[in-house]
């Protein structure tokens, strides 16, 4: 098991008061909570500090943590023998769990013992305990999100062993992702979280969808945007282009006189969600200028300049005077 320095995580000395611990946590939570922070490593950082705070704010867990002794962060260690007697009875081994699992086990055992409370059954082992909900990040390609896909997740779950200790076990889930999921969307796989105990229901698995950027397509809600590069004469005279879309290549007619920035809509070529109305694909016109002109092309531009009375800056003086 790897040692974690919970005091250092919260920027505290080992003799910090309960008030110091709370203040340090609140200061850092304000900065790193994933629901309100946009720091790049907020989620991982908050997980570390949340774990440290969960242990240090509880006097019993803090005492148990302090008795693990001092080690370098990340160093492999084993709790002293008497530690297991005092705090982790029934815990089989310490090799396949994390330090946070150890304290989660301590809290759960304490909860079960308190939960007995002279209840009708009188045996904490019989109490129904619903399974925990799990959450997992799922990164999909654009095509997987557009078409739907099946995923195979290998998770690690914390569960009770027959001796009453905690252990980590592999938790494999296969799930069908519906077509048309979007970036940041959450999905639920009912009953695929932690195992419920003594007749209580299993938890659910929540999936956070993240879609890898696509070199061509940009997504907003159900709509897709794609740049359509045109030569100046194509923009002026109109043309028909073969445009790749996620549903296949389409022939797109560009009207004559289409300016840069104009959006050509392909209805229903966006993301489809269930049986609802599909989104649209927008081709946004960009005018690309040739960077090198030969003598003839330069001459043709010169002739065009002479023949045209078009002034793209005609509005400037009038609007500047307002």
């Amino acid at each position, binding site marked *: 098991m790897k040692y974690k320095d919970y005091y250092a995580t919260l920027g505290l000395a080992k003799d910090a008061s309960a008030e110091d611990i709370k203040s340090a946590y*609140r200061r850092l*939570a304000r900065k790193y*909570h994933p*629901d*309100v922070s946009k720091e790049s490593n907020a989620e991982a950082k*908050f997980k570390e500090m*949340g774990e440290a705070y969960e242990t240090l704010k509880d006097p019993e867990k803090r005492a148990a943590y302090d008795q693990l002794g001092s080690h370098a962060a990340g160093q492999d260690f084993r709790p002293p023998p008497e530690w297991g007697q005092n705090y982790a009875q029934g815990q089989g081994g310490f090799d396949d769990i994390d330090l946070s699992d150890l304290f989660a086990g301590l809290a759960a055992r304490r909860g079960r013992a308190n939960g007995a409370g002279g209840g009708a059954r009188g045996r904490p082992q019989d109490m129904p305990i*619903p399974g925990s*909900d799990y959450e997992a990040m799922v990164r999909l390609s654009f095509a997987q999100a557009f078409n739907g896909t*099946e995923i195979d997740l290998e998770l690690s779950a914390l569960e009770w062993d027959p001796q009453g200790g905690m252990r980590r076990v592999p938790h*494999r*889930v*296969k*799930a*069908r*992702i*519906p077509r048309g*999921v979007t*970036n940041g*969307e*959450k*999905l*639920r*796989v*009912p*009953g*695929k979280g932690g195992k419920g105990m003594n007749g209580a*229901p299993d938890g*659910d698995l*929540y*999936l956070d969808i993240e879609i890898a950027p696509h070199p061509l397509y*940009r*997504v*907003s*809600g159900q*709509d897709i*945007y794609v*740049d359509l590069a045109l030569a100046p004469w194509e923009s002026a005279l109109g043309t028909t282009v073969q445009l790749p879309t996620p549903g296949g290549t389409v022939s797109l007619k560009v009207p004559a006189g289409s300016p840069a920035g104009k*959006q050509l809509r392909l209805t229903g070529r966006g993301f489809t*969600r*269930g049986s*609802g109305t599909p989104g649209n694909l*927008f081709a*946004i016109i*960009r005018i690309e200028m040739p960077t090198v002109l030969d003598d003839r092309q330069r001459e043709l531009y010169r002739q065009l300049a002479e023949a045209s009375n078009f002034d793209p800056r005609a509005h400037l003086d009038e609007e500047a005077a307002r």
Partner: protein
Amino acid sequence: MNPSTDDAVRLDSVTEVTWTQLVSASGMPEFEVRELVRYGALIPRDPDAPVWTFEARWLVVVRTASRLRRDFELDTHGVSVVLGYVERIDALESELRRLRAQLG
């Protein structure tokens, strides 16, 4: 063992969840979830119905509420205020994504 394949369910405004499912997903005591409804942070399909049902998208909100409640040690009124800001940030980010998608 090869597990069976389960459907991942969308948490949108089409799918419906019961009050019991919402409370269970929150991990909060029922009376606290009821307070969130009272403060307008969660909205039943029909607030006057004898048994409340919700659009499944509220599962995401109630789980956020639960995290904010626990991690910031807020009361339910504080949670409902923060949820309002989170909702505004979500709307602004969605608008930003749309504009970025258009700009390229």
